[in-house]
């Protein structure tokens, strides 16, 4: 009687069946191949047929089953369950995993009995992964705890535990219970907080979680330190050759008590029609196309120069802008998000320069100043611009005044003025109660004697306010100063490149950028190098992003294939190692020459000078006497032809050459008389 074939332990079989049933239910009972696989698994406990140990029959068997599965899997249709990616790809992946585990029931491994069980576990989990890709429950809520229990028992049986005692069983049952309760409770917590977790996850995967690290605050306020001073973290990557370094993000109109208004969050945003974001190409201008990739996505702002005439926002979930203050443009989009802008020459009235100051109300909004401030700064502004007749001349005069008279400093120590009550908050309260006026931070900066250094927010605000004093409409702008070359064709913008400047309205010209910060305060003056760890991290981030992009454009079938590749690689590597290990000696023997050639080679070797064994013949021939070398070379050629040239060995000819060589070596040398 034929001996009973090896079968896998019961928990392993039950786990495999549970995984297959799970996928079958998720498919809506259309994958009849899975039912056949389940029957095949059950049949393995009755049938005595087993596959041989070699790979080929198993591969053929699995290949046939996969072929049937491909034919039996319908295309996606209206009744197909909702899944991430195509359902057909997921089903094929799951069926392939189920086939992998089914084959194991017919392929016992005598040398490693636990291996088929491990493969069943592997295939079972992959099948469950495919099943769990579904958005619908399909009894999975009940099936998964059962699968977890069976997986735990299967893990024990794979390990080859001896029959457990009653006490072990008594301990095992609560352990399983605790595992299930932990899984169930944590699932419940996740379900209750799914929105928050989804947001966190999206941030982790696509965005940075700290908006303030963008270097752009919601509202600029003048303080002793530069509020927008950022770290070396990357924010944007510009691909192309941008000509204008000032990438504006947000413009502010109203200045009051050291702050610019309105805040970003308080602006009313309206959806953008993408056609609104394109102007006709100006005459006699060569457009410059720049692609910007957002590396941090905290507040979804878009940065581009004032001179941009076309903005292509690509595929985004939500696009909106605030027209009342000439921006900002805000786009919500999944990472990696890339947009394009086209810029022309400096001074061109781009998208954010329009529609301009068309009404008196617009003009007065950009000339807004408090009475106190106007009263305090008007004498200075008038004095600076006393010789300037045109708005442009006034802009130049005030810019020159600021550049020439004030140094740049990242910190500003507010001095006390004669009419002041100091910068201390307590003093301010006391002073206010006593009816004294509070002195604005800009007054402290502009009217201090001796003059003190400050950061770009002070220079930009000073320029804006002084120009307003002399009747030139201005607005305060925050954004980035792009300068760091990453490669020949790309620039990197970091948080530390955050900058502030102002824009002035020149009649007949429109809005122009006014840079009043001394060059030593421009972000490109910061020569400090990027930390080593950050460079390494950035390299990793780029690689990760490339991987995400690569994976994002693959369909589930391709993803499944990609997931399989490492396992195939590991398998092939293991096979190769095993084969190399077991066949090393025979393989080496195949390198050996046939006996007749070996004898000739041995004799030839004996005639050569003794050198280390790693020296090939060709290098040893140089040590032979000159008259013997041609003969030796002839022997080597004959030997190589016979050994590797596919020719039959001419033993007699080689013998003759060898004797000729021996004679040549025996002859007295001309130099040894």
């Amino acid at each position, binding site marked *: 009687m034929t001996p009973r074939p090896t079968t896998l332990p019961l928990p392993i079989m039950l786990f495999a069946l549970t995984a297959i049933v799970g996928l079958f239910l998720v498919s809506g009972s259309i994958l009849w191949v899975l039912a056949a696989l389940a029957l095949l698994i059950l049949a393995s406990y009755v049938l005595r047929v087993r596959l041989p140990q070699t790979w080929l029959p198993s591969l053929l068997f699995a290949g046939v089953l996969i072929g049937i599965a491909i034919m039996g899997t319908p295309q996606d249709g209206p009744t197909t369950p909702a899944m991430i990616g195509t359902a057909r790809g997921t089903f094929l992946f799951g069926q392939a995993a189920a086939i992998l585990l089914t084959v194991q029931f017919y392929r016992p491994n005598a040398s490693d009995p636990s291996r088929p069980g*491990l493969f069943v576990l592997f295939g079972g989990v992959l099948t469950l992964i495919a099943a*769990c890709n579904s958005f619908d429950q399909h009894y999975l809520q009940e099936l998964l705890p059962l699968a977890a229990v069976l997986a735990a028992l299967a893990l024990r049986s794979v390990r080859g*535990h001896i029959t*457990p005692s009653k006490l072990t069983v008594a301990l095992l049952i609560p352990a399983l219970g605790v595992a299930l309760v*932990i899984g169930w409770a944590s699932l419940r917590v996740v379900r209750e907080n799914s929105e928050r977790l989804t947001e966190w996850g999206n941030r982790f995967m696509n965005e940075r979680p700290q908006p303030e690290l963008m270097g752009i605050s919601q509202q600029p306020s003048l303080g002793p330190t530069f509020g927008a001073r950022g770290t070396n973290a990357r924010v944007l990557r510009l691909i192309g050759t941008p000509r204008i370094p000032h990438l504006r993000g947000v413009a502010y109109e109203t200045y009051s008590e050291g702050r610019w208004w309105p805040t970003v969050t308080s602006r009313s945003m309206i959806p953008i029609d993408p056609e609104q974001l394109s102007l006709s190409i100006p005459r006699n201008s060569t457009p410059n196309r720049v692609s910007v990739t957002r590396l941090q996505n905290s507040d979804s702002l878009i940065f581009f120069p004032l001179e941009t005439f076309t903005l292509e926002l690509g595929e985004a979930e939500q696009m909106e802008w605030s027209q009342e203050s000439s921006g900002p443009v805000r786009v919500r989009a999944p990472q990696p998000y890339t947009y394009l802008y086209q810029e022309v020459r400096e001074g061109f009235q781009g998208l954010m320069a329009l529609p301009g100051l068309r009404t008196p109300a617009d003009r007065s909004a950009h000339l807004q100043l408090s009475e106190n401030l106007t009263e305090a700064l008007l004498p200075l502004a008038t004095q600076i611009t006393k010789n300037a007749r045109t708005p442009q001349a006034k802009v130049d005069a005030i810019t020159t005044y600021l550049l020439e008279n004030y140094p740049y400093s990242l910190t500003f120590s507010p001095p006390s003025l004669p009419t002041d009550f100091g910068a201390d908050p307590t003093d301010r309260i006391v002073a206010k109660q006593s009816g004294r006026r509070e002195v604005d931070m800009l007054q402290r900066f502009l009217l201090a004697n001796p003059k003190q250094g400050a950061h770009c927010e002070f220079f930009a605000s000073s320029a804006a306010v002084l120009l307003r004093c002399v009747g030139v409409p201005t607005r305060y702008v925050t954004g980035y100063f792009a300068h760091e070359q990453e490669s020949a064709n790309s620039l990197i913008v970091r948080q530390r490149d955050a900058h502030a400047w102002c824009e002035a309205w020149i009649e007949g010209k429109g809005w122009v950028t006014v840079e009043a910060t001394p060059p030593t305060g421009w972000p490109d003056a910061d020569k400090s190098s990027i930390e080593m760890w950050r460079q390494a991290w950035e390299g990793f981030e780029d690689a990760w992003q490339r991987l995400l992009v690569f994976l994002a454009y693959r369909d589930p079938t391709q993803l499944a294939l990609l997931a399989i590749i490492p396992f195939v690689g590991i398998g092939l590597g293991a096979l190769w190692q095993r084969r190399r290990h077991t066949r090393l000696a025979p393989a080496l023997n195949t390198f*050996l020459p046939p006996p007749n050639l070996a004898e000739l080679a*041995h004799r030839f070797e004996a005639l050569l000078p*003794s050198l280390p064994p790693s020296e090939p013949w060709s290098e040893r021939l140089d040590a032979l006497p000159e008259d013997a070398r041609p003969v030796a070379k002839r022997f080597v050629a004959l030997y190589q032809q016979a050994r*590797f040239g596919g020719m039959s060995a001419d033993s007699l000819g080689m013998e003759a050459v060898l004797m000729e060589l021996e004679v040549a070596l025996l002859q007295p040398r001309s130099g040894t008389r």
Partner: protein
Amino acid sequence: MVGYPASKDINQHPYYQGPAGQWVWRFYHFRFTRTGRWFLGLTGLVVFILVLFWNLDTQTIALSLYTLGLWFVSLLAFLPLSVRATLRHAERVTAGETLQAEVTIENTGRLPLPDLTVQGWGLPLKVDALPEDGIRLGFLRPGESRTHVFPLACRGRGAFVLGGCRVLSDFPFGLLQSYRVQPLPSRLIVHPVFHPLTRFSLPSGRRFQPGGIAMASQVGDSFEYLGNREWREGDNPRDIDWRATARLTGAAGAPLVVREWREEYFLRVGVVLDTHVPPSSTSSKRMMLRELQERLPGGSSSEMRLFALESAISLCAAVSDALARQDYIVDIFAAGPKLYHLMAGRSLAYREQILDILACVESSQEEPLSQIAPRLFEELDRLTTVICIVLDWDEPRRQFVESLRQRGVGVKVLLISETAVPADADMEVLSPSVITAGGVESL
């Protein structure tokens, strides 16, 4: 990391030599079971897919959380293992045999210990525990002890120290294991395997052999009877052969006849073992090219050379055994890593000592004959024959053998090679594979 059993001595791992690397290796092998490592990979895959798509509306999150639940309970269920182990085994065994060691585990704690397993710990590379992943002990109540046979397969010869054993429990799911190492260092000598020779003929030297050790080791042992002769003055009267004298009595002046005896000596034979295995150079492109293009007889790779060395040691054991059985005294000379010289034969250290020495011999990257020669030449006056077991036949070896012959010693060269041809009459070429298979019965 994969493929190096957890029962082996980590210090002999080819890569994990530093403390950090060894910690990682121990953590991976000692804390995770094999199934645990597989399941860890699967859990990683599930979590990776979850993070990749990050959509909590699919059921992947449920699968991930139940899987993590199993891991969490496995972590919670770490048991403090209070156990005591003892290990007993024979001190000597032959390569290829399985040593039946005996291990006793006692639960010295107050808690019952489920799913107990005992594994080897710190075993040498050539000694494998059977089965490699340990012997299941099952459940052990407090105070209970259990004794199991602990088979150790000795794959190669050597003098080893067995580290001890590791008692572990992978309760509840066989994913993680709590363990306690029981260092029980013990010595184990694995003798080389050899097939005894039925006949071994020796070439004799031209010299008179003056030295040697008397065969009679105690008073009363018989001497060699040479013949009868006439009595001379001073002969022991007890040696008079009265029967022979009686047969000659009829003749006039018939002399007394005495029996003549001769003291008998063992002949001493030197056995020189070549242990030279050049450093592996297959990593160099040049050597690889040479291996592929011009693989020559004798120019073997390191693996083949080591195989030849093992065969040579096996043959050396067989030759020494045959000589010692034929009333020869054998002087074994071997170098690697240090110089060994052992005199063995009847009434002296015999097979066990020879095998002990041969168990310890290792390959030498330096030319060993230069170390052996001075010691051998000191003893050469008392040696009749020298047997050289060499792995190569090149100029230094040829000169070495020639210098022995010039001193009048009979020399027999046994060249261990698959493909070499004999260079002279007193040389025999023996294939390593034939020696290993026991195909050499007489020499």
